[in-house]
């Protein structure tokens, strides 16, 4: 278990460093409109790439995952909250997993 503990400490460090470094070191205001726009678009691009296509393999079974994704997209389109969208997706996957 000592080995696992050391591994966890290492994981914590390599997670913390990229998060804190720019925030702590970089104080200047970026003037370039290009870089500003780039940074503004980053969260959307990151979340898109994190979600697709990996969402389809997130439940161990493709078809329920597709149904869950559909419901999540629909609920999000109608601007439901994070929790409603997440729970709606879970419930859909759970129920449809008995069909496939």
């Amino acid at each position, binding site marked *: *278990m000592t080995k*696992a*503990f*050391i*591994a*966890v*400490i*290492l*994981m914590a460090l*390599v*997670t*913390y460093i*990229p*998060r*804190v*470094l720019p*925030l*702590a070191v970089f*104080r200047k205001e970026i003037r370039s*409109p*290009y870089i*500003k*726009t*780039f*940074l*503004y*678009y*980053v*969260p*959307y*691009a*990151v*979340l*898109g*790439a*994190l*979600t697709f*296509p*990996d*969402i389809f393999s*997130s*439940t*161990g*079974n493709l078809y329920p*995952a597709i149904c*869950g*994704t559909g419901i*999540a997209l629909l609920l*999000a389109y109608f601007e439901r*909250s*994070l*929790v409603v*969208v*997440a*729970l709606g*997706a*879970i419930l859909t*996957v*759970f129920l449809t997993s*008995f069909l496939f």
Partner: protein
Amino acid sequence: MKQNHFKYGFRRGIPIALGYIPVSFTFGLMAVNGGLPVWLAIFISATNLTSAGQFAGTNLIFASAGYFEIALTTFIINIRYMLMSLSLSQKIDGSVTLLKRLFIGFGVTDEIFSVASMETGKLSASYMFGLISGPFAGWTLGTAAGALICSALPEALSNAMGIALYGMFIAIIIPPARKSKSVLCIVLFAIVINCLLKYAPIFSFISAGFRVIISTITAAGVGAVLFPMKEESDAKEVAK
């Protein structure tokens, strides 16, 4: 005033905290099923506070991988936080001290970053602490619940919970993508690149973490050329 910032931030963090519970619950289940003691599962969530990175790292611990491989894989998955942290460094009020920044940095997760970066105006330290505290509690307590309940949950339900994290991502990106064509284009572009890197055999050497980084930089980079923002003052006024 400061009290208000904290409260406002905390309120903004509540949906994230609730969304984290099923995800961290799944993590707790997985960690204890794999053989880790309950306290270590909770310790991982409290010190790592990240989804993809700690799931991957924990799987590698189960596979008895070496320290270097575990650290490198986790690091690669987490490099995307550098972009987010850099982006946040532009939003955080200049007067926020280094010590406070060290704490704020700990709380930069995909969701916290997204919510913070969509606020208008500069962000105070109190706001960030408020925003971070709920999700931190949700993530840690969810893990504890999953680790303790462990085997009592039917498999179909624990499988279904795997989609929770992605559901939250969708809930964050769809509303702005609906309102701004440029955001929609960038999201779709990032997804196309990511799929290409994942499924095209010539790119099979690229790990999941790097895939996300390459897709993000390319999509946001090309997007910034195609859809420049009109004025710095209002990020919401992106070219429609």
